[in-house]
């Protein structure tokens, strides 16, 4: 008999992948985009192969890569293996065909726009994305950050920073793949490895902070996800997105979190 997969299950993990390709002016090395996208493809592929789900804020640089991996690795699943969350600020510009091209393999939650101006207005953009991110964090039980736009001096809140802060507030385990650059790299200067709540040793977290070796990063994460009981225990937030009820629900008493749920305009 031959073997093509391990007897490993990541089915209890809904992994938030936070990040984006930084603007070219912020690249710290040539072809920085390549390393980040290779990480996204390999990591999301292996998570999906072993039954995990990927949750993402619909950044156009990551989304096509994640959707492709879902089609390759997890197309036969009963529940769609991806959850995408998008603010109406962007969703209102999508055609039906564009939405359909994601929702064959991904659940899509659209959150309300806050403010009456356009994407160009920093306040409307920041407030709308904060609302989007509160739903995004409720749909995941573990956060992995890689890359991320810097937004130096443009008045826009960097997404990775806000998502990691929200995940920390919610007590989710966090992993910072800083060695591939971007905002995640900057965050590693101010966050101690021991504060990430991810059950990895400081030494291994520091490897993720500094190495630009994509294979080494994915290797550390998959080995840990596959084998760590303490990580599995800490990745169980009580208040989370319930796809059956289409609301964010406290699993302890079944109460709907009306405030965060009210941010969701529609789901596909």
């Amino acid at each position, binding site marked *: *008999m*031959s*073997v*093509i*997969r*391990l*007897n*490993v299950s990541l089915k209890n993990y809904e992994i938030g992948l936070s990040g984006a390709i930084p603007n070219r002016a912020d690249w710290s090395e040539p072809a920085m985009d390549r390393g980040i996208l290779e990480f996204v*493809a*390999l990591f999301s*592929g*292996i998570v999906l*192969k072993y039954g995990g789900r990927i949750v993402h804020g619909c950044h156009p640089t990551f989304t096509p890569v994640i959707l492709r*991996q879902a089609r*390759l*690795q997890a197309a036969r699943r009963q529940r769609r293996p991806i959850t995408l969350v998008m603010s109406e600020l962007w969703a209102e510009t999508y055609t039906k065909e564009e939405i359909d091209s994601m929702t064959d393999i991904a659940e899509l939650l659209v959150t309300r726009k806050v403010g009456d101006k356009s994407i160009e207005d920093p306040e409307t953009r920041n407030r709308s994305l904060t609302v989007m991110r509160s739903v995004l964090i409720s749909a995941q039980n573990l956060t992995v950050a890689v890359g991320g736009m810097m937004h130096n001096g443009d008045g826009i809140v960097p997404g990775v920073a806000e998502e990691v802060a929200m995940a920390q507030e919610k007590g989710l385990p966090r992993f910072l793949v800083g060695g591939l650059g971007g905002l995640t790299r900057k965050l590693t200067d101010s966050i101690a490895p021991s504060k990430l709540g991810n059950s990895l040793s400081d030494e291994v977290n520091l490897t993720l902070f500094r190495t630009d070796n994509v*294979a080494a990063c*994915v*290797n550390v994460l*998959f*080995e840990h996800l*596959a*084998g760590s009981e303490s990580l599995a225990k800490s990745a169980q937030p009580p208040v989370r997105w319930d796809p059956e009820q289409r609301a964010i629900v406290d699993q302890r008493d079944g109460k709907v979190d009306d405030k965060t749920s009210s941010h969701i305009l529609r789901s596909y």
Partner: protein
Amino acid sequence: MPFIVEKEFVSHGFAWKTIDKRLLMFESSKNPNVRLNMKVMSHCSLFDQIYSPAIKRFDEFLKSSGRGNFSLFIYDGELLPEQQLEEIVKSHSEDVIILHNQELAALLDSNFTALGASVIGAS
């Protein structure tokens, strides 16, 4: 890639030996106790995809060199979809474990118990 695989085996207490450098065939062994000698034969593929002549050559190599406790065909590059892997396995006679190098650490961590019932018929 052989270097990554060697590093993984060695960090899990295996001795690493090159059997055929040109064909990238390797043997890893360890004796967890006096009554058990574990031997793993590995081929590290140079190709991003699983190249059919390479796996055929691995089959022939296993027949001529003798099998260990486990035979690993390790590939690199993009993670292949299960359907494609199933097709590859069906077309070959020898029993092999086909894994991406990123899956190796979890297998070694489990001391090969992660193979469990995850098998598909080939022979």
